[in-house]
């Protein structure tokens, strides 16, 4: 029951974020102008869309409050351990590092590092297989995008 309650709370927070965002966008939408008869303004669709988000968000929040015991996030009742969250965090960190690194060290080194990081984060204990995997990925991407498509891959001091 405790877990179910915490899920309800998280879901309510999500609705709250959506509703707050939509409410905050109402005024800028109105400022864009709704237009006049026969000539709609650029603010009409954003206003209508945000009103729809706001109304459905409130309705969903009310439904959670009324029948909170029935909440089950997307039917995914599987338990996620700490390792799972760490893996996901590590993956996101790797993704965030790529745009930061690529302009400095260039495509080859950044992709090599990121794919190696991803391979290590997702469970390889040794170094041999992740290195082989990351070198293969980097080479294939270079071959496909750089050689075949002749794209200007981002370059830095290493490439």
């Amino acid at each position: 029951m405790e877990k179910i309650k915490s899920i309800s709370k998280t879901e309510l927070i999500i609705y709250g974020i959506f509703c707050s965002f939509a409410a905050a966008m109402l005024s800028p939408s109105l400022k864009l102008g709704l237009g006049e008869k026969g000539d709609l303004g650029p603010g009409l669709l954003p206003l209508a869309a945000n009103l729809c988000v706001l109304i459905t968000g409130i309705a969903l929040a009310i439904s959670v409050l009324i029948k909170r015991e029935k909440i089950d996030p997307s039917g995914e009742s599987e338990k996620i351990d700490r390792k799972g969250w760490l893996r996901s965090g590590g993956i996101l960190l790797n993704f965030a590092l790529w745009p930061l690194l690529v302009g400095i060290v260039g495509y080859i080194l950044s992709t090599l590092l990121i794919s190696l990081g991803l391979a290590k984060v997702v469970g390889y204990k040794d170094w041999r297989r992740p290195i082989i995997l990351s070198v293969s990925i980097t080479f294939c991407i270079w071959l496909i995008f750089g050689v075949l498509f002749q794209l200007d891959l981002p370059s830095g001091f290493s490439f």
Partner: protein
Amino acid sequence: MSGLEHLLQGFQIALDPANLMMCLIGVILGTMVGVLPGLGPIEAMAIMLPISIRFGPLAGLILLAGVWYGAQYGGSTTSILVNIPGEASSVITTIDGYQMTRKGRAGAALAVSAIGSFVAGTIGIVILQLFAPPLAAAALSFGPPEYLAIMLLAFVALSTLSGDNPLKGAMMIAFGAFLSTIGIDRIAGIQRFTMGIPNMMYGINFVPVAVGLFGIAEIIRLALNPYVPSPMKSVRFRELYPNREETRRSIMPILRGSFIGSLFGMLPGTPAVLASFTSYSVEKSISPRKAEFGKGAIEGVAGPESANNSAVILALVPLLCLGIPFAPVAALLLAGLEMHNVTPGPLFIQDNPDIFWGFIAAMYLGNFLLLILNLPLVGLFARVATLRPRVLIPIIGVLCLFGSYMTRMALFDVWVMIGAGIVGFILTRFGFPLVPLVLGMVLGNILEDNLRVTTQWLNGDFSLLLTRPITLVILALIPVYVFFIRLAGKKVFRNGIKE
């Protein structure tokens, strides 16, 4: 020029080595994706979308469509061999397909599934080829009010038919529509919600959002709960023959499935899933061997596998003729075409006969390639399903990064993709359907344009809509359609789940 001459010209274009190669890559990739649990055609197409842009509109369209219908083929392999559906539309195949494997008839089930998919796909393409040009010609007489009504039907149907909770779907499609308005307004020329960020002036690009929502969110999900690949039964080529009795019993279900899929294909929502469940229900209800269903009836494989393939092909009709995607993957195809400044719609066939007929011919070829590749290579495709997430995640991750970057050569898009991935993962965990969000982004601009043109056309007097019979019929259809399809869908799914 007659339809046949157009088609022959289309074959000339499709047989161009570059187009043929795209077709081959698309169907192989689609089949591989189809057998992998978790990854589906939407995820694969989202990842391939930026890559497809590099090849021009026709080759890009051929590649993406190949992934789409290839995934339908591939989805059945794991359903039959290990009782794990690779695709939502293959869920129903697990019931009798896996039972056939347990009885030692896996080869027959795979062969019937592949042949049924080929027949249904071909029937679907013939219907598309015959139906699309006259429908497009008829749509030329539609005015802005009719288009607005069709847009509204698509909006309402796609938001209410996705996921369990229609409110969540409506919220997502509205949020997607809002995101589509970010950037410089095309008519007024003023900036909307750009927050002074130069990259936002041209709007939030659809591609990194789709890659993030489907690709990155799936990677996070895989990392949280990595699946352990199931041991796969090996099937030898000489085992891939149904016996005479199985062949005889498969013929009518394949034809019925093709017909059901063709009917459902043109409806908004998830046509392939609904078609396969309906086909199973129909086969079971009319079969003289009802007791065999659930224990390895070949009809339970032949019907649904045919239905989902023809549904996939026919889902292209609304996109190509009206320019409105009624299915999620069609939205990705639309996005791909728009990036080449090719706008599907009533004038699409007239203005771009090379693309339309080349695409039709490529689908015939792709369907044939799938048949000749799938049976001999079934063992290889089955081995793809044994790939561990730790191999897949780095490959998919790097492809997502490059795909997003390549669209506009902007690192800003990579950040958008990462953000969309996190949002997508959170939303999915709480049961929010992501497809309406993407459709809202694609359809938002089209809706706004139609709304503006209609308002100008009617001079703001919407009561004039009452004088437009087609508009009235479409508007009246919205509640009726949503009510009946939801009801019918629930009934069919309930029957399938009971099995």
